[in-house]
């Protein structure tokens, strides 16, 4: 019995709906794939939830379920929120796509917002952010700041989202130094501080002096700080972990989008849409440019401005693949479809893409 109790206690702790009941308010539900304490992906989505509360006050009530694994569990969690009277549900991970659509069919009056997916319905919108724009900016900074001419890049998994980021980083770096090199290691995890730190140490031992990461914890940056190297924060502004080492960070900011979409439901103007916003939509923000000379910071700000105003697009041709094949013709912008399925490295990356 006691064992059952402690199991139940643990289950409640790790899978609890947090929030209070209230009538005639719009109930906004969130499904997170990780813990809100990850200081990365789910943390930033939760910041967006808090922004809704701050902006819309007593017109809304928010609830969330964290640590929902991608799969059948997700459907149950989403349905639970819908049954509990949520009028708007954000499901914030790619793997929630099919479960979200299934539940959306059963609850036609509930609005759904699914992050990073591509399937929509009358009551299901999708949204994502163009993080690669930020990666182009940090690529330029890395090329200007590196003394060895080589950056280290810690990847999570070789999926299009991450490969696109590496390519954008390299295109940015090559725009400054055509011979710039990058060493890539795969942590095969989104989130394992110890492993990420190990990867960072290995890269620094191999002679890189700037680190970029596409994994979620501040551990690599902390290693950079300790070793007197420099790097970039991921998802959140991580300057506290590396006051001397962080140059800037690519910050996921969902708050503007979340507040607008929630307002739209309140006004009755909500429609199913697909949003892929970047620096211009303020879904991607750059943390303050620190620990770099003023001219580097100014150049970075200029690039941000150019991307924001649409003057510069990171994936503008001519872009060559690793084997020299022309991927994007001169002056052409790579379309979103091709970017979403990107599975090739740009020229100048020596590593082999894991298949």
């Amino acid at each position, binding site marked *: 019995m006691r064992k059952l109790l402690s199991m139940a*206690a643990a289950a409640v702790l790790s899978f609890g709906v947090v929030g209070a009941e209230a009538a005639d308010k719009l109930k906004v539900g969130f499904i997170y794939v990780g813990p809100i304490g990850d*200081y990365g992906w789910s943390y930033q989505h939760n910041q967006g939830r808090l922004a809704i509360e701050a902006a819309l006050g007593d017109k809304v009530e928010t609830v969330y379920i964290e640590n929902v694994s991608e799969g059948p569990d997700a459907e149950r969690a989403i349905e639970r929120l819908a049954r509990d009277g949520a009028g708007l549900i954000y499901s914030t991970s790619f793997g929630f796509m099919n479960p979200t659509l299934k539940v959306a069919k059963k609850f036609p009056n509930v609005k759904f917002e699914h992050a990073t997916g591509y399937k929509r319905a009358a009551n299901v919108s999708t949204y994502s952010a163009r993080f690669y724009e930020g990666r182009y900016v940090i690529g330029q900074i890395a090329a200007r700041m590196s003394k060895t001419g080589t950056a280290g890049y810690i990847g999570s998994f070789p999926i299009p989202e991450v490969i696109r980021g590496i390519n954008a980083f390299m295109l940015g770096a090559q725009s400054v130094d055509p011979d710039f090199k990058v060493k890539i290691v795969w942590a095969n995890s989104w989130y394992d501080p110890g492993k990420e730190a190990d990867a960072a140490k290995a890269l620094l031992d191999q002679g890189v002096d700037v680190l970029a990461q596409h994994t979620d914890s*501040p551990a690599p940056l902390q290693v950079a700080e300790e070793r007197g190297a420099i790097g970039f924060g991921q998802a959140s502004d991580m300057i*506290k*972990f590396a006051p001397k080492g962080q140059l800037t960070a690519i910050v996921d900011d969902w708050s503007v989008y979340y507040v607008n979409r929630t307002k739209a439901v309140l006004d009755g103007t909500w429609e199913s849409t697909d949003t892929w916003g970047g620096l211009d939509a303020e879904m991607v923000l750059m943390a303050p440019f620190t620990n770099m000379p003023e001219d580097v910071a100014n150049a970075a700000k200029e690039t941000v401005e150019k991307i924001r105003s649409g003057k510069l697009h990171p994936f503008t041709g001519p872009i060559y693949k690793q084997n020299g094949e022309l991927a994007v013709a001169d002056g052409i912008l790579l379309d979103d479809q091709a970017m979403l399925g990107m599975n090739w490295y740009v020229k100048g990356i020596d590593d082999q893409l894991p298949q």
Partner: protein
Amino acid sequence: MGGYESIILTVITAATPLLLAAIGELVVERSGVLNLGVEGMMIVGAVLGFAGAQATGSAYIGALCALGAGMGLALLFGFLTLHLVANQVATGLALTLLGLGLAGMIGEAFVGQPGIRLERLHIPGLSTLPFIGPVLFGQDLLVYLSLALVAGVSFVLFRTRAGLIIRAVGDNHGSAHALGVSVIRVRYFAVLFGGACAGLAGGYLSLAYTPQWVEGMTAGRGWIALALVVFSTWRPLRLLAGAYLFGAVGILQFHAQAGGVAIPSQFLTALPYLATIVVLVIISRNRVLTRINTPACLGQPFVPDR
């Protein structure tokens, strides 16, 4: 800093939490108890270690808090399995779930705060020696403690009466009981020792490995520690070798990747586990060896006089 030297330093850092957690579990299993809650005790150790260090400003007090936290959960486990004779496997799994949830709750306030690092020792004259200086004399206290624990456990288990009693309880609790040994008390001590070690291992993560708190930061290391105990066939010195092997494979795979060696990274990530399976196959072929080293009463509840 030379290349090899810093690789060795990194390997030591990666191996130490595994070694700490595994050496504790080895004693627990030698006494015949299977505690699958190592991951849970570790993570609670990590969060309370971090909290203790933040509150007092001392990483050493943090390490003590981590130790205490592990023991606290171990006490709960002991009470459930030894006193109430609950199923050890189920209780251990519940302990992991409980620990993960509890740590997330306690740690909410600490997310996004840089931690206090456990300082590395600096022995004048020795720590600055080329190569061997930083490797041998420049580690933090927990690294030395983990090595001392291996030596200590090895000595106590195989060279002292206390060790004989622990092994007797693990191999045949009925006979040990008949000889007047308090099986429950011995097992309580072993379980608490295991909890203290697991807590310290967690503390090592949040105080030395990556001085920060983020939820789920143990990332399965408790399970690797459990695998290591089996890998070592319950022998402390083999455990030491195993922990460093696991650590080294983990680090070298990153070097291989960064150095452009064309081995799939997924394969390298899986390598320590493949090694465990291979060792399991090898040891289970040698029946005598298995019988000598495996605690015969592992996982069996003990109820006196029934």
